[in-house]
């Protein structure tokens, strides 16, 4: 009944492989810049990964990854088109819906979702 304008992509990955979650950070507005990129798991709460470019150039943005989720397995790649959050050694417990929120200085906030399915067993630590 409702229209959800938040696009969702479905990605399947095999446990142990790297996975790349897309998040478009491009903007058409002249003079615009990305302030923040926030990745949420299941929509809400504290982001699990953030890129804070508010007080510096976005290429020097401060990156933070939740120790209890991706920790140092995750790395944001803003130069890709679209930008991607890479995650190494994906685990079955990483299976979830992730939301990427991009806050721009000028343009409308952009939300997109990734439904990540992880196949197979993994026992890596």
């Amino acid at each position, binding site marked *: 009944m409702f229209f959800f304008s938040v696009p969702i992509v479905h990605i399947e990955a095999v446990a142990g492989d790297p996975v790349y979650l897309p998040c478009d950070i491009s903007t058409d507005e002249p003079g615009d810049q990305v*302030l*923040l990129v*926030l990745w949420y798991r299941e929509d809400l709460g504290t982001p699990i990964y953030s890129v*804070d470019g508010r007080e510096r150039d976005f290429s020097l943005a401060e990156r*933070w990854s939740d120790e209890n989720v991706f920790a140092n397995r995750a790395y944001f790649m803003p130069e890709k088109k679209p930008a991607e959050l890479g995650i190494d050694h994906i685990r079955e417990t990483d299976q979830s819906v992730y939301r990427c929120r991009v*806050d721009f*200085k000028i343009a*409308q906030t952009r939300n997109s979702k990734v439904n990540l399915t992880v196949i197979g067993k993994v026992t890596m630590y």
Partner: protein
Amino acid sequence: MFIFFAGGGSALKDVSVTIPTAVRVMDTITLQCRFDLEGEPLYTLKWYKGGKEFYRYIPKEMPNTQVFALPGINVDRSKSNPYEVVLRNVQPEATGKYKCEVSSDAPNFYTIMESAYLFVIDVPVDDPVMTVDKEVADVGSILTGNCSTPASYPAANITWYLNGKKIPQSSQRLLTPSELQNTVPSASATSVNPRRTPMVAFSQLELDIDEDTFQNGKARLKCAGTIFHLYKREKEIVLEEERPRPKPSSVLGIRDAAGDSSQHSKSVFSVTILTIFFLVR
């Protein structure tokens, strides 16, 4: 201009959205978003409609407020603040799901969203139209009544009353336009109407006429159409009993209203109501 955050809480909580459920086209409405940051600084508050942002407040940015155009939505900037966003002259396109998203500042960026649904209704000006196949009926016969409401989105609800008492709906069916043409009733249909097409509600009543239908040889049959609290119109027809039975006047003379209605409540209606909606061309 607005918030003073002090003290040392831990997280954002208690985000709540208060908006009207149904308003008229061209109304001015207020969208409220309340939240408790428990001492954390606010990074941003955003309003979305159907996933698209139309208002945001970022205290650290200059300007701290930004408004984005969406169909049917005109934000009154001078009257809006992070707690209350005022929309002027709302249009039917503004119907939809409204979401308030609040995020605390670094390092946590704790985020909560709450949403609520708004209907902006072009309220019909006309009354329902009601017809019956006979206005004089005898006990044992079946009376057929039809009632339709003017086109609206969402479609009106139709309720039937006999002598002021709601007629229990034994069955209600919804039809798509094609089903209506084929006159094949089906339980499917109509709830999906993404383009907010105005719909006519149509209800057919089959009423078994019995001894309790009439009061002093007369019965009041009423059809009422409602759309939330914004449209409440009714049509009434007085039916007459074909051959009024002689009644003990002494009993009638002393019966009060309460006694009358309890007597009435014993009567059993056998009713079939068919309510259908169809598109207006």
